[in-house]
């Protein structure tokens, strides 16, 4: 039973939580907004909010779940404040040269990051949680409080859209 007003003592070292999870939080917001400076500011806000709510954190796993959720929420808030989607100038990006199979292509990576940042908020959140955090659909559904079916639909449609956009620009064969 939980009583309102009781402050629970936690064994969490806040500074350690910041050190451990700063990349995760920053990256979630950066990949959402594609804006390094704003992502830095908002990531700080997320950790300050964590500090205020530290008494309600039950475990290390709970802290991760909480941080992911709030980071995505704050990124969505920022998007709505800006009320814009980044414009992707793909014709300014030259086609990648032939390369070894399996090697990371930094140009393609940047194109993909920009394309992700142009998706609507919900599929954008889903794609980032899937491919940055490697969460499965049921975990994403629980985090975002949306049905699992919706998560899978967002994934399938977003992948199809990305393939189509890349193929139209002749970037790689997918």
């Amino acid at each position: 039973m939980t009583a309102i007003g009781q402050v629970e003592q936690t064994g969490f070292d806040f500074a350690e939580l910041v050190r451990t999870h700063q990349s995760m939080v920053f990256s979630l917001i950066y990949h959402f907004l594609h804006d390094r400076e704003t992502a830095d500011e908002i990531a700080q806000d997320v950790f300050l909010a964590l500090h205020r709510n530290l008494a309600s954190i039950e475990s290390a796993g709970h802290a991760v779940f909480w941080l992911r959720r709030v980071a995505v929420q704050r990124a969505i808030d920022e998007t709505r404040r800006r009320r814009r989607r980044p414009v992707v100038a793909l014709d300014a990006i030259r086609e990648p040269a032939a390369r070894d199979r399996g090697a990371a292509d930094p140009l393609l990576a940047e194109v993909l990051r920009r394309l992700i940042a142009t998706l609507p908020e919900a599929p954008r959140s889903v794609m980032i949680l899937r491919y940055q955090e490697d969460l499965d659909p049921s975990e994403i559904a629980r985090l975002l409080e949306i049905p699992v079916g919706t998560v899978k639909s967002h994934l399938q449609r977003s992948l199809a859209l990305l393939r189509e956009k890349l193929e139209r620009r002749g970037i790689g064969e997918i």
Partner: protein
Amino acid sequence: MDLEQELYQALTRKDPPPGFADRVAAREHNRHGGLPTRWLAFAASVVLLMGAGAAWRQHQGEVAKDQVMTAMKITAVKLNRIQTHVREIRQ
């Protein structure tokens, strides 16, 4: 090319600009007017024990605020769930 593999690569976690932890610590420190949090909690309990009317009102205010925030969080979660479901059905 394996698109999913490329996405994993593209969305690899990145480090924030250097000094991130220090910036968070500085903001948290400034938010409390320069006092460490544990000293604030201690100071609050001492004032409460002294039983001054203003201190009791302060405590009541903080409790009321916590209760309201809890109420709003529960409401917000439920509204979000309903809105999401309704949006899904409409699609």
